[in-house]
């Protein structure tokens, strides 16, 4: 913890000196917003991996379908624009958020039923391959429904800089970025509360530790796994809504790269560890933003994969993870 804070402080000093304050803080704002979206998806990977040790390859594509559904609702159906009255806008966003989260949650639970549950006792290769197959199925469903092109909506928040209220002009925080935080952070808090204090959360933690014993103690393991997928799917749906309102565009193969980024985040933080996933996602958001800004967008993916490989090879427990070190 202390080391982390010191590292972060050093990073700030180094960044300001090296890149110049305005560029550095602007990149940090972008990185933070990206990181929050990664966090929602990364939590889905880490929850599922924590409980059934499956890399849910299809998760990124559930997120993609969430963003497609949100695109459909915000764009063609409700036709929200920047001129829509604020109260109506908020109402529609809440509605879209609810519908999308329910949709992706239901989708994720169905995927679990169809593709993973029958393979619960099979060797571990089987569900992983099934998940890869499911990922391709979902991508193609997206392609079938939305076509091969990018699907874009208007920026419904405008481009006003919040910081100009305080007289700061060099760094921009726009309403989209604030929106990302407003949706994401409460969800993270609710999830943390759910897993750490509720009965069902306790059942999830018990199942993650040892499904057989948890079953003997009266935990309905199948139901717990289904609820885990439900939560993961709902978070992916929320991430989909946030991503379409933040980036204003989505595409059928968005899930693959985004999913691998988020998975990398989960591994970086220590897979199976919820706080780790959020931390890893923020770090990865920063890495993405800084690489895009100061290095080259062409190399960002290679960099992310390089980091993923390096962590898996040299520190497979990640930054915070200890619990599941012996699982892989």
């Amino acid at each position, binding site marked *: 913890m202390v080391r982390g804070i010191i590292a972060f402080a050093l990073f700030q000093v180094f960044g300001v000196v090296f890149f110049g304050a305005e560029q550095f803080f602007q990149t940090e704002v972008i990185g933070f917003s990206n990181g929050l979206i990664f966090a929602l998806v990364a939590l889905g990977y880490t929850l599922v991996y924590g409980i059934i*040790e*499956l*890399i849910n390859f299809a998760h990124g594509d559930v997120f993609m379908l969430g963003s497609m559904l949100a695109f459909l609702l915000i764009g063609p159906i409700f036709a929200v624009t920047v001129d829509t009255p604020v109260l109506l806008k908020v109402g529609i966003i809440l509605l879209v958020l609810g519908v999308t989260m329910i949709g992706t949650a239901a989708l994720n639970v169905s995927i679990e039923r*169809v*593709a993973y549950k*029958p*393979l619960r*006792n*099979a*060797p*571990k*290769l*089987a*569900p*992983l*391959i*099934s998940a*890869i*197959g*499911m*990922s*391709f*199925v979902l*991508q*193609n*469903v997206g*392609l*079938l429904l939305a076509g091969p092109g990018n699907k874009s909506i208007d920026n419904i928040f405008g481009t006003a800089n919040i910081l100009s209220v305080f007289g700061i002009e060099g760094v921009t925080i726009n309403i989209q970025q604030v929106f990302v935080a407003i949706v994401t952070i409460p969800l993270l808090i609710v999830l943390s509360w759910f897993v750490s204090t509720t009965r069902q959360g306790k059942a999830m933690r018990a199942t993650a530790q040892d*499904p*057989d014993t948890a079953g003997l103690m009266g935990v309905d393991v199948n139901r717990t796994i289904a609820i885990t997928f439900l939560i993961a799917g709902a978070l992916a749906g929320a991430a989909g809504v946030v991503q379409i309102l933040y980036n204003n565009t989505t595409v059928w193969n968005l899930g*693959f790269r985004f999913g*691998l980024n988020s*998975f990398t985040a989960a*591994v970086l933080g220590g897979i199976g560890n919820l706080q780790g996933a959020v931390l890893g996602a923020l770090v990865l958001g920063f890495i993405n933003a800084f690489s895009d800004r100061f290095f*080259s967008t*062409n*190399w960002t*993916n*290679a960099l992310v*994969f*390089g980091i*993923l*490989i390096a962590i*898996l*090879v040299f520190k*497979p427990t990640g930054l915070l993870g200890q619990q599941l*070190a*012996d*699982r*892989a």
Partner: protein
Amino acid sequence: MSSATKQVGSGIGGWVGHMVDAAAAIPGHYGNLLAKRRGRTIALTLLGLLALTYPLIYNQFLAGLSRNVFPLPVPDETTMTFMLIFGIMAIGLNIVVGFAGLLDLGYVAFYALGAYTAAFFASPHFGSISIVLFSNVVSGFPGIHLPFWMILPMAVLVAATFGALLGAPTLRLRGDYLAIVTLGFGEIVPVFFKNLAAITFTFTIGGVTLISLQDVNLTGGPLGINPIDPFVILGVGFGATSGVAAVYFAMALTIIGIIVARNLERSRMGRAWGAIREDETAAEMMGVNTVRTKLLAFALGASFAGVAGAFQASYLGATTSDFFQFSTSILVLIMVILGGIGNIWGVLAGAIVLVYIDKTLLIWLGQRIGSVAPDFPNPSQFNFLIFGILLVVMMRFRPEGFIPSRQRAAELSVHGLEEAETAMGVDVETDNVSVAPPGQAELDREAELPSDLDDL
């Protein structure tokens, strides 16, 4: 197989002698098989003959029929060649996944390395120099021009080296972590090929510039490298335009691949692969050098993709990084799984069937449907929808594939495992990617072996 149990001599001479012995034993074997399993042997013989003669049948008869009378969903020469290119890759991936039980999701990287090896050493790409060796290209022509028979061993070497390089850091990893690392590797390699088009780099020590690169175009960037020399022997070309000749050349490569893979499977190394696949810890205790074994599995498996890539590049006469996507890795994996993991003939059949579906059947269907209902989605655009469903369904109902190896069938089916356990009265380690199944995990953990290979 008597030839398998015989002591194999060392070196190339011994290997050639072994091959000659094996070839000499074929008529006897065939007679035996014909006597014992008449129907099956005759059917397989006919199938083999059909495979050998099909390119000619197509060329002489089916192509004209399909063009002039009515369109038939029959594979053309390009499809046939790609069936065999993917067949070689499936046989190679089967060494890694099927024999050694290491799930590799980045196999396409080695395919790319093979293709770019051919592109670098047999094209006008490096126009500032001129090296022409044994090639039909006019001497003094810009670029490096080596003949394909020199490219092939180079591609093998490059792919095998990178296979071992990938293998080295992943030795400690097991199961799904290994899968993800290989996936990352498979994604990084094409990124390098895509981006290394304008390298500007200077390396200076103490005022002395050791390396100075100005805008060096190494890989051709997103456009790739084009053209690549076709393979020509005695005036016979083996490129995309040369029709049947290329198919037979690919067939020859595939047959060599089958022979090599079969011999590997039955070698000491092959048994070591089986042992680490079944139970790495036990194999190590029994004296199997797991480091060497795994590295060799990666290197040898990769070399097959190197051959396939080099041939593909010289066949198409062009290569770009877009050929080498994650979906290609998965396509080859599906071939291995569909055909029958661990079984050379199964994975070859898987490759042939999948390329047929991908390159002939779906396109034909798309044209048929398109002529009736133009608005209906073209099935050839949704090939991976079908393959994805295939993967999910196969894992659910037939994880051992359609032509399984007997051993792997028992390991992969839950049922077979239970039978095996009851029959043997022991807890069988069944895990093909060496992550223990429920129950076994605890045993592994309690074992607390001193080896750090077990930590992860």
